[in-house]
Each structure stands twice: as structure tokens, then as C-alpha cells.
């Protein structure tokens, strides 16, 4: 089987489930979610244990290397988690999609992420600007639907419109950037682009203009400042599982593409220095804005949106820190994203559960969570500690390697900003911990009904797995590295 068989399998799974959803009239929709999870797990197992040889295939535009493999893993894992989350979130969906008690529309919500997943997986392998663009749009268009999915909820609709308009705009920039790249180098394939760039004679400004346009388009995907404006509103308005998907799946795929697209620009002498300066400035702005704007937030979902921006900043620092001739930036970014998957999904999972059990996304809705369900509060605490970058959690090593790279490249000013950002993180992440443990649930009964939260076995196991993963890779990071 060719390497891209995995993507084909995922698409087939999606189509099959769509048919099943259409022709099966009775029965709970959660069965579809179950099948989706099982199917994706099988693909994941095949991805990990299937022994395809690395190389380039499909007319040279499909790269199959360890990076691609790992990012496909991230895409699959986050999709599985998002579908599991959606099952717990079904009550909220129903409230805002149907006027009656029927389950219509619920099925699609379990199936759409599968198609997005196929796009994300293809993104991980794309080595050609056209392929990149097509894969990216597959994902983005699926997201347009998912973000606006709760059609009777104003917030969700508003988020949908904002995401659509700004997404379309960024796509425009991306296409424009691709055109300019083609104009400068005469090629779409990244290898040929690299060759073309290194042969530039005379002014490098057209090449840099192309780079800037590409950065605008991709900066939108990874939520880097100043292309972050959509993030807080869309994250807050979209259904929580979709937000999680945006925050992890979409961002991870955005970063692998960014790494691949930047590689030729960073290797070619004429564009290298300017590209690094641009990236460093973007990193600094993202760190400052993401972290400082998170401080006054009182809505946990919005808080996580700013946190997502700030993590994009840390990741950009790694890319902006040039270390000659070694793949440290790739390793750092990839490790960071692996850790980010576990900790962010953990937080969103718990957010979904709190919301679905009569609470709200507001900070006050988390009051007294430790009394309502100890496991959820503890899980959230671990997730937040990891996002804040406390040692012995996976998130610490992410930041640790980033700081290390910044020091190695003598980017002291950027390191200082990163430290400032991390310090601010202590405050806004701990704010949630404070709500969960200090405050009593009955003081905010309107937002957080005092009753305990019962969770299903599958959810319990998933949360435990995420907690263990977050802690485990914080103590033994070497194992995560061995996967790429």
C-alpha cells in the first residue's frame, strides 16, 4: 500500500459513516462516534506499527518521513479526542441545533472531524505549495462548518462568520504568496523553490514579499500576532470540542507547514537574515500579546484562546532561533506540539464536561470543582501546571528546549520576553486553579450547580491517560523524542 493509503482510509471511513448516518434511522448517534473512534484508532495503530519506508512519493509532492508520521499521529490523536469530547458535549449540541428532542445533526458532528483529519494528515506530508494549499483548504472549509455548528447559538454563528471572513482573507494572502513565490523561483515544489531562491541575483525584495504574504496566510493558521484577531472570539463562540480541535490539530498542522515552507527561505542566503528577523519580531509580539492579554480574562475558554496564542509565540521563538546545521528547531517545535496536545486536550476535555453538566465556560463556573469531581479538578490542575510550564510536566520541557535554543542563538532579548510571558502565565493559569480549589460552588450557584459531576468510564479513562501522558513526558521526555 502506498503511504497515502492512510489518508484514503480516513476519508473512506468518513464517507462510510456518513452513509450509515443517512440510512440508519433508529439508534443512538453515539454509536457513530464509537465507530469513528475505533476506525481512527486502527489507522493510528497502523501508522505507528506499519512499516512503510520513508521517502517521497505521489509525483514527488508527498513526503513520508518521521516528521510527517509524527504529525499525522498528532492529527489522528487530536481527532479521536475531539470526537470523544463531542460525545460528552452532545447535550449542549442538542440544545442549540434542534428545537425538538431529536438527534438530527449530531451525526455529522462526529463525522466532520474525520474529514478535517484527512486534510491535517495530508498537510503533514505536503511538499509542494499547491498540495499544501489544497490540504489546508480541506481543513479550513470543514472548520467553517464546525465552528458555526450550533445554529441556534448567537456566539457560535458569530464565530462562524468571523472565521469565514478572516479565513477567506488569509487564504487570499496565501494564494498571493504562492503566486509570488512561483514568480520569483518558477516553481511550486519546495525543493525547487529552495534552489530558485539561492540563485536570486540582484534584489531579494520580491522573494521577501512572497515570504511575508506566506507568513500572513500561515500566521493566521497558527494564531500568531498580528494575525490573531479572530482567535479569542472564534475560540469562545465555537463549540468547545471544535475549539480544542482548532487549538491543537489545526495549529500543529499549521506549524509543520510553516516549518516546511520556511525551510527553503531559511536556507537560501539572500532571504535568510530578513526571514529570521521577521520571525523573531512576530514571536516577540505574539508572546507579549498572548500572555499579557490573557491576564484579565474571566472566561476559561477565552483564556485558553489567549494561551493558545502565547504558545504559538513560544513555538515561533524556536523557529526564529537559527542553529546551524542541526534539526533542533524541528525537534523542539515537534516536542512542544506533542506536549501541547496532551495538556491542551486535557483542559478542553474538562471544560467540555463542566459545561455539559450545567456549568458554564466562565471562570466562576469552575468554582468548587474540586468538591464536585476531584478527578476533573486534579486533571485541570495538571493541565494548567503543564501549560504554565512547571517542571515534571511535559509543558516544562517544551519551554525548556525553547529557552535553550534562544540562548544558544544568543537571542537574549527574545528570551527575556519569553520569560516575562511565562511569568504572566503563572498568574492566569493559577487563577483557574484558585477557582477550582478555593472557592465554594454554592457561592456561584447560578453558574455552577452544587451537585457532583458523574462521568462515564470512557471519559474517565481518557482523562487519566491524558494526565499520565502529561506527567510521564515531563519526567521521561526521551521517549517522545524517540518517535521522530
Amino acid at each position, binding site marked *: 500500500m502506498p503511504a497515502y493509503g492512510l489518508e484514503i482510509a480516513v476519508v473512506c471511513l468518513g464517507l462510510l459513516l456518513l452513509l450509515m448516518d443517512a440510512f440508519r434511522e433508529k439508534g443512538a448517534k453515539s454509536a457513530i462516534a464509537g465507530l469513528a473512534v475505533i476506525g481512527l484508532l486502527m489507522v493510528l495503530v497502523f501508522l505507528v506499527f506499519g512499516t512503510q519506508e520513508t521517502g517521497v512519493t505521489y509525483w514527488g509532492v508527498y513526503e513520508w518521513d518521521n516528521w510527517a508520521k509524527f504529525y499525522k499521529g498528532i492529527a489522528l490523536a487530536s481527532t479521536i479526542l475531539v470526537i470523544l469530547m463531542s460525545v460528552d458535549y452532545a447535550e449542549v449540541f442538542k440544545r442549540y441545533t434542534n428545537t425538538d428532542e431529536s438527534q438530527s445533526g449530531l451525526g455529522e458532528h462526529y463525522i466532520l472531524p474525520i474529514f478535517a483529519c484527512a486534510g491535517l494528515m495530508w498537510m503533514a506530508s505536503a511538499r509542494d505549495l499547491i498540495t499544501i494549499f489544497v490540504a489546508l483548504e480541506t481543513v479550513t472549509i470543514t472548520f467553517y462548518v464546525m465552528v458555526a455548528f450550533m445554529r441556534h447559538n448567537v456566539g457560535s454563528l458569530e464565530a462562524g462568520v468571523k472565521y469565514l471572513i478572516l479565513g477567506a482573507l488569509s487564504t487570499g494572502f496565501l494564494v498571493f504568496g504562492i503566486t509570488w513565490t512561483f514568480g520569483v523561483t518558477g516553481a511550486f515544489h519546495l525543493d525547487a523553490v529552495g534552489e530558485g531562491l539561492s540563485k536570486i541575483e540582484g534584489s531579494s525584495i520580491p522573494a521577501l514579499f512572497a515570504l511575508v504574504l506566506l507568513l500572513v496566510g500561515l500566521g493566521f493558521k497558527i494564531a500568531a500576532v498580528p494575525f490573531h484577531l479572530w482567535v479569542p472570539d472564534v475560540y469562545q463562540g465555537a463549540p468547545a470540542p471544535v475549539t480544542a480541535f482548532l487549538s491543537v490539530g489545526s495549529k500543529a498542522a499549521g506549524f509543520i507547514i510553516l516549518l516546511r515552507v520556511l525551510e527553503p527561505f531559511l536556507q537560501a542566503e539572500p532571504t535568510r537574515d530578513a526571514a529570521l528577523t521577521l520571525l523573531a519580531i512576530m514571536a516577540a509580539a505574539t508572546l507579549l500579546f498572548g500572555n499579557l492579554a490573557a491576564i484579565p480574562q474571566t472566561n476559561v475558554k477565552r483564556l485558553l484562546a489567549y494561551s493558545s496564542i502565547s504558545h504559538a509565540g513560544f513555538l515561533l521563538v524556536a523557529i526564529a532561533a537559527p542553529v546551524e546545521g542541526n534539526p533542533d528547531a524541528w525537534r523542539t517545535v515537534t516536542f512542544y506540539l506533542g506536549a501541547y496536545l496532551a495538556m491542551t486536550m486535557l483542559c478542553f476535555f474538562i471544560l467540555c464536561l463542566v459545561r455539559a453538566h450545567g456549568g458554564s465556560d466562565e471562570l466562576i463556573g469552575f468554582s468548587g470543582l474540586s468538591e464536585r469531581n476531584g478527578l476533573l479538578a486534579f486533571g485541570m490542575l495538571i493541565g494548567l501546571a503543564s501549560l504554565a510550564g512547571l517542571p515534571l510536566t511535559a509543558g516544562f520541557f517544551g519551554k525548556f528546549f525553547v529557552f535553550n535554543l534562544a*540562548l544558544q542563538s544568543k537571542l537574549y532579548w527574545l528570551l527575556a520576553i519569553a520569560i516575562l510571558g511565562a511569568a504572566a502565565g503563572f498568574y492566569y493559569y493559577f487563577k483557574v486553579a484558585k477557582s477550582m480549589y478555593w472557592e465554594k460552588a454554592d457561592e456561584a450557584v447560578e453558574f455552577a450547580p452544587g451537585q457532583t459531576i458523574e462521568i462515564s468510564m470512557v471519559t474517565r479513562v481518557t482523562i487519566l491517560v491524558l494526565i499520565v501522558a502529561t506527567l510521564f513526558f515531563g519526567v521521561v521526555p526521551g521517549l517522545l523524542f524517540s518517535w521522530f
Partner: protein
Amino acid sequence: MEISLLHLIVLLPLVTAVMIMVGAPARQLAQGSSVLNAVFGVLLFSLFDRDDAGFQFVASLNVLESPGINFALGVDGLGVVLVLLSVIVMLCAVWQVPKRIEGSEKLYIVSILLIGGGAIGAFATTDLFFFYAFHELALIPTFLMIGIFGHGPDRTSIAWKITIYLGVGSLVLLAGLLWLYQASGVESFDMLTLIEAGKNIDAEAQKWIFLLLIIGFGTLVSLFPFHSWAAPAYAAAPTPVSMLHAGVLKKFGLYGLLRLAVPMLPEGFAAWENLILVLLLGNVIFIGFVTISQRYLDRLLGYSSVMHMGYAFLGMMALNEVGYNGVVLMLFAHGLSVALLFALCGQLRERVPTLEIRELGGVAKAAPFLAVFFGLGAFASIGLPGFANFASEVMIFLAAFKDGLGEDGGITPLQITCIIAVWGVVISAVYMLRAYRNIFQGEREPQEGLLDVAMDQRWPLVLLVAGLVAAGIFPNLILNLLP
């Protein structure tokens, strides 16, 4: 990998914490494990080979290939002293947990175990990453403990303050440690390799690394002017947390400086010597006066513990063997005495409506045990002969003077600092004796129904005093561990 005694000491509190989290009976298990760990600690102390200056009980497990990070344990003399201090204070702290806790007993005890276990781990590891990581283990538990179980109306802001201070301090520290690692040019976080390789860091880099380290570690030790988190936090925290923080965790910063900065960054020391001398005088004299003006006993003890850190810095700045020994003995003595005082302060808090010194009086009549032991703790803290604090302070003052007059025959800045710092002893005597007289003596009758310390909570306090006296009369008990 073989299991060494150190593994047991480091992992026991953490394993206990996990067991309690999943449902084991909290109080009994924690008490049992703390006794067991103290026994292990004494065992470590007696099994340590005093003729061998290197690291002992070494064991290592690789967790990351490049850069090399290992879960590596091992102690030298300095490590043994601090591990011993930690297990003793931890034992006393666990036994000082109040009988009735409002809220979750589980959370309370798990937090104490994590704070204490983290401190033990930080002193017992020889890997730079775990050294840092273990210390950070205390951050969240401290935040929650002060917020949920703390005292006083402004405990929320105090909890934020300590968390932000310690968080920022440790981030600055992280930057300094990473820089130190890169400047040394080895691909390993093993401290011994780093120290060996790092002796030839160029002077300019040393200067800036040292500055980062002194700000980072200094914040954790509450070096003036980074001290303002400490006293309010100790006052607001539940008793066992104050005991662990003031008694043990605070020593982490000095331990780090002694372990890393002293052998690796001599030029850094030289570059910032005068600055640090001024800052430590800030601790001894300025904070000394601040302490005198305190109206509440808990804050007074908090500031007094901040003040004494100035002496430790003075010993370190002397950069000679006597000074080094003096500092180590001081860490041990200060840890025990401050834990004792905070334990008794906590006992007193349960018995009287306010800790305002002027409002109290005659407590000794109703609670003689409390009074006598508080008196002993106060004497130790002032530095009266017979207690380990005396021995350590004398050594530090001697060390600061030892190298004679400066090059031009004049008196050195270190000696001037020492002369001024000696006055700190007088300041200590003023506030401690005044507080003691007001609270325990005097005409005033103690309030009705004031009881003495409960029988089963007395023995840990006796243990602390015994440690202070033993190390005070035979300082060699501790000092012969050091090279």
C-alpha cells in the same frame, strides 16, 4: 539500576502522597511515612563515609539522551546535612498538622508531603534538571495551602505574592542555569560534569550568569530587596507549611549558590562582591529593624528568618573553608530553630484570639512547656552559646575576618560588612527577648482555659531542640561530614 537508600528517602514522601491521593488514610499514613523517612535520614547520616569527600549513594537513570538528563541521586557532606534537616523538619511538620482541619484533610496532607518531598529531592539529586524540578514541586501546593487553609483576611493577595515571586525567581534562575550549562560546553545536566567542565567560563559570561543566579536564587532565599514575599507568606501559611518553607525550602537557594556558583563562578563573585555585601547588610540591619517594629508574633518570626539569611550570605562571601562550614552549619541550625519557633507559634495561634504581641501576656503560667520551648527556640535564634546557631555565627564572623587586612594594609569591604553585621545579634536579642517577655511573662493573666501543648505533639519539638543542642555542643557532628 540498583536501589540506594537515597531512592527510598526521595521517593517515600512522593509515593505516600500518591497513595493518599488515590484513597489511603491520610493522616496515619503520612505520620508513619515521615517517621520512617526520618529513620532513613539518620541511617544515611550514620552510613555516610566521612573520609570520602566525593558523592556517595550514587545512582542514575537516563531520561533524555541529548542533552543528557538523568534521574541521578547522590549526596556529599553538604547534601547529607540538608537531607537530614529536611527529613527532621518534615517529620515535625507532619506531626504538627492540626487535629481538626476545615476542608479537605487529604489535600492538606498531600500538599505538605509534596512540599517536603520536593525539598528532599532537590538536595539529594546531582542532576541540574531534577534539582530545579523538585524545588518547583512546592509551587502549587503552597499556593493552594495559603489560599485554602491560610490565616488572615489578606491571604489571597499573599498567596498570589509568594507564587508570583517564586515563579518569577525560578524562571530567572532557569535562564541562569541554562546559560551556565551552555557556557560550560558539555552536553549534560549532570552537576558534577558541569562543575568539572565549567571552571573555565570566561569572565564576562561569568559576570552575567552570576547576576542571574543571584537574582534567581536570591529571590528564593529572600535576599534583600527580593524578600518582601517571605514574612507575610510565613505568617499567613498553615503552620506545617511555614515550618517547611522557612526551615527547609528557603535553604534551596543558598544550597544552589554553594553547589554551583561558588566552584564555577569565582570571577562572577568578584564582580558583584560589593553589591552582595550591601544587600546582605540590608537583610541583617534593615530587615532587623523591620523585625523590631513588628506587632504580630507570626510576622516577627517571618522577618527574623529573613534577617538571618544575611549571615549565611556573609559566610558565603568569605569564600574560605571556615566560612563554608559556618554556612552549612547555619543552614542546619536555622532550619531547626525556625521550624521550632513556627511550630510553637502555630500552637499559640490555636489557643489565643490574636497573635498581637502587646495583647498577650502571662502565657507561661498556663502553658509552661510552650513557654520553655519557645524560650529555647528564641535563644537559639539569637545565637546564645550552646545552640548550633551560636557555633555557626561565630564561624561566619571569623571567616569574614580571617584573611587579614587588604592588599594596601587597609580594612577590606568584607570586614567592614562583618563589623556592621555583628550588630545584628543585638537586634535579634532586642526583638526576641521583648516578644518573649510580653507574651509569656508579665503581670497579665493568661486567658481562661488555655492549655499546654498536647502530649503527643511534644516529642517532635523535643527532637528539634535536641538537634540544636547536639550540634551546638558538638558542631563536629555536622562539620566532619564536610571536606
